[in-house]
């Protein structure tokens, strides 16, 4: 073991150190200086990002690198997700500063827990050993349980945290059960060895056990990304949690769930002419029909449930469930045995654009919280345009982007998902998916209607927007527009992350 083995965990270590540092510094800060915690956390995120960048530079030629006694696989996929988590966390910190002051809950633990949960996420994305993945998952989940209940005086927040904790613990149990069965079958916790030994087992007398292991594992995974029928926790947790945390959960926690799902279910990519694959990929013929069912159920259920919501956070919770449904279609794309590279590319792009547009939407809702107004009901958005025109226009952009209208970022997520489905011949699923996305436009327009065409009910006063909130809104809106109009480098980024060669067959036509 060389010392660089541990260096791969540098960004994670940095985050953990900063989290502990915040806890210490918080004790010494006077009440009116609590904003310094946010600064520390933000610096921590920057340091961690610098660490990721260092690793990226260091790995330059190597497509992947095993670390931490072969429990971590740092490949471009992991680096991609690390950047994504850090970007989401940075924006979420910017969103939180004023919000926590308004809620009188300005404690350092908030930021410490946030950083710790990101450390967990990073373990999930880079985990190559089911034990490390599980530990990362628990670190993330437990931090999030506390964050959801962070508004101690708010009953909704407490209820949400308890509900999330109970269901989360339950699903973690099922998930751990599945993982233990996998370990029992294959005799290893390493995803690569599991991937190598499973194919033989699936065709032996152990097939029933393998299927039970698969089902329980997938149940745990689907719970974490909140796919129907394992979505029950999401609307409640999203509604009750502090709004900034709702935003954080809906993008970072979700992306981590997806990273873990992709890691465990496995995908393959080609590096230097060698096909690398691992995990449960060999059981793909068994789980694809399941995923088809789940994604149709998710799109249907979430879109219909979102129609009748009157609470914006709850509406966006259902919308985020619906987006999981579309993303699952990307996992279906391909043949029964082989996952289409375009499908997984679609998922990665989807997560990227979703991070910015959804965080932006939650930033707008967070900014509505001031003095005695909670601001998370649909009616609170009424006439927002006359009170805060810039926020209203940005919210319109985010909503249209979520609905997938070009040329906004959200379009590209859907585009690549449906592209992969058409490419691999799933015409009916693609048609169903696009029709549901039209369906989804209806409830996004409900928000737009309230903002632009509704009448102001509670006071005409201008909305006070803090400087950090402006920065968060600006960043997310800029990303949503920029990725939407000039997506090329982001598509290439994802190609890079997945080791897909930049498409040589793309047109060199002159018209």
């Amino acid at each position, binding site marked *: 073991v060389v010392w660089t083995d541990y260096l791969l965990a540098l960004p994670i270590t940095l985050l953990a150190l900063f989290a502990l540092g915040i806890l210490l510094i918080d004790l010494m800060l006077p009440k009116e200086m609590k904003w310094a915690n946010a600064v520390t956390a933000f610096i921590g995120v920057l340091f961690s990002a610098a660490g990721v960048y260092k690793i990226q530079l260091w790995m330059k030629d190597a497509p992947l690198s095993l670390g931490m006694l072969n429990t971590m696989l740092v490949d471009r996929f992991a680096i991609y997700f690390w950047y994504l988590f850090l970007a989401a966390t940075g924006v979420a910190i910017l969103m939180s500063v004023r919000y926590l002051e308004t809620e009188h809950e300005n404690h350092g633990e908030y930021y410490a827990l946030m950083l710790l949960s990101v450390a967990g996420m990073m373990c999930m994305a880079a985990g190559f050993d089911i034990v490390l993945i599980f530990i990362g998952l628990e670190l993330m989940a437990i931090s999030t349980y506390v964050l959801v209940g962070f508004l101690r005086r708010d009953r909704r927040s407490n209820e949400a945290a308890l509900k999330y904790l109970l269901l989360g613990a339950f699903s973690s149990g099922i998930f751990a059960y599945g993982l233990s069965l996998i370990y029992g079958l294959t005799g290893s916790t390493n995803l690569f060895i599991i991937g190598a030994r499973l194919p033989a087992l699936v065709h032996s007398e152990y097939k029933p056990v393998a299927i039970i292991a698969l089902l329980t594992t997938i149940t745990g995974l689907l719970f974490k990304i909140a796919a129907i029928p394992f979505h029950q926790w999401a609307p409640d947790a999203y509604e009750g949690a502090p709004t900034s945390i709702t935003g954080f959960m809906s993008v970072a926690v979700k992306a981590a769930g997806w990273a873990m799902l992709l890691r465990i279910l496995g995908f393959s990519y080609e590096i230097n002419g060698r096909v690398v694959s691992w995990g449960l990929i060999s059981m793909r013929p068994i789980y694809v029909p399941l995923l088809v069912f789940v994604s149709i159920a998710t799109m249907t259920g979430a879109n219909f449930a979102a129609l009748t919501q009157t609470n914006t956070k709850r509406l966006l919770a259902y919308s985020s469930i619906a987006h999981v449904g579309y993303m699952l279609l990307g996992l279906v794309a391909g043949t029964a045995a082989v996952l289409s590279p375009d499908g997984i590319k679609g998922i990665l792009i989807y997560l990227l654009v979703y991070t910015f547009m959804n965080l932006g939407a939650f930033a707008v809702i967070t900014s509505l919280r001031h003095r005695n107004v909670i601001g998370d009901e649909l009616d609170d958005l009424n006439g927002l345009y006359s009170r805060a025109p810039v926020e209203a226009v940005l919210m319109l952009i985010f909503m249209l982007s979520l609905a997938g*209208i070009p040329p906004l970022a959200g379009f590209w997520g859907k585009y690549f998902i*449906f592209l992969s489905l058409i490419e691999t011949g799933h015409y009916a699923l693609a048609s169903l998916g696009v*029709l549901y996305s039209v369906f989804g436009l209806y409830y996004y327009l409900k928000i737009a209607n309230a903002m632009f065409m509704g009448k102001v009910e509670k006071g005409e006063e201008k909305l006070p927007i803090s400087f950090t909130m402006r920065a968060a809104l600006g960043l997310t809106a800029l990303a949503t527009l920029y990725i939407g109009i000039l997506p090329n480098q982001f598509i290439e980024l994802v190609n890079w992350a997945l080791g897909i060669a930049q498409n040589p067959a793309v*047109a060199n036509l002159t*018209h």
Partner: protein
Amino acid sequence: MQNHILSIILFTPLVGALVLLFVPKENKDAIRWIANFFALAGLLVSLPLVPWFWAQRFEPGFKFIEGAAGNWIPSIGASYVLGIDGISFLLIMLTTLLGWISILSSWTAIENRVKDYYIWFLVLQTGMLGVFMALDFFLFFVFWEAMLVPMYLLIGIWGGPRKLYAAIKFFLYTLAGSVLMLLGILFLYFHHHSVTGTYTFALQALYDTAPRIYSDYGPHVATLLFLSFFFAFAIKVPMFPFHTWLPDAHVEAPTAGSVILAGVLLKMGTYGFIRFSLPFFPQVLADTTTHLGMTVRGWMIFLSIVGIIYGALVSLMQKDMKKLVAYSSVSHLGFCTLGIFALTPLGISGSVLQQINHGISTGALFLIVGILYERRHTREISEYGGISNVMPIYATITMIMFLSSMGLPLLNGFVGEFTILQGTFMENWRWGAWAVPGVVLAAAYLLWLYQRVFFGTVTNPKNEKLHDLTPREVATFVPLLIMAFWIGLYPKPFFQILEQPVNHTMAMARPDYPQPAGSMNTTAANTTAAVQPPAIVAPAANMPTSPTPPPVSASTKMEGTN
């Protein structure tokens, strides 16, 4: 200048919108002046296109092409490429003209949130122009969808009492059609790749390969694919029975929104049929197998004729003037689709000309209704009567526009409808016979409307003090009147402009059709056919009959050499 003229026309309104962003919203007059300046500038920069285009009207292919492959999103093969032919040229000129007129007509009609109104209107203008200019299918799709947003806001914010319902219905309805088209586009994209090994959305490349889907995947898939495009375009046109969004959107939209909606937006559907459906799926239209009792083409004709008659009959029954004009659009656009699917050169060029005519006359009709509405805030026909006594100029202009809309000879409507019917008769006299009652009914509902609103004595005391048109209002009608008379008296230049693209479309959509014989200007048509680049005609000509698939190398070689 000529190299970038299309981009300049395309982005002038958008620049105006950006400039308006920095004007304080309290300063309404400045906003109005700036918006009108940019709208007029949008028209003026498009005028040089007229002589330039005229000079090369018989030359084959797309003109004023700008942008190269791979300049936008090389990783998926989408590029920013613009170019026009005669069809898109006429529609672009219509768009810039109507855009200016609508913005001018909004001066007093819009009083609240003036700034946003003009910003969205100018954005809309850019979106519509982009649809007609794009030579890249992906770019086309982006403009096609992006344009929905400003229109939705225009209806939803500045609309009538049921604006929310109308705006959402418009948005959802049109989006539902276009997402299916996206899947169709992707199918063509992958098919093109499987044939040539190249990923591209370039229109001309897809023209070469798309017709082969019929032989590669069979009639069933090709028909479904045709349908995926059909829904997008038919909803936009709108063809019966997809028209239900139209009356709502028109009635609730502000006047200028209605003008643009009827004048330009509906044309995007017919444009799509001509530009994409006909060249992509010639065999589907030629197919004689029946679906539910009719061939695909039979269904298209059937729905067009039903639209003509149904739209006219419903117009007769309306109590609201604006709704009457809205339903008359269904009827008029029925003629346009009839001409397209008659698949004769006369039918198609008549159809394009009728689209321009409809933009002029129906645009004017909405302005006319809007002027009365602005003065009295009602559109109920029964509220009026004897208006010609108090507003003589207004009544005269209205009469001319009504006559133009119903197709009186010497005015534009006649030329368009006559050419369409002629083209349809040449194909099948029964189709023409079914469509003719639409012309009669149009005269009925328009003249009856005129009689009820303008003739007689003023019965309603509220109408006694109405003031006649202001110079600004007259100015909005002058260009429309000029165009109406010009097309009515001397349509030859328009047919000359349309000749090359129509023949080209015919060659792709119906390669077996005896080409030069059916055209209007034989000498020019011969040159056109002779100069036609082989890459475009050759595969199309080979397609339906030749037993062996057209050589792949021919198309790929062309792509390689350029």
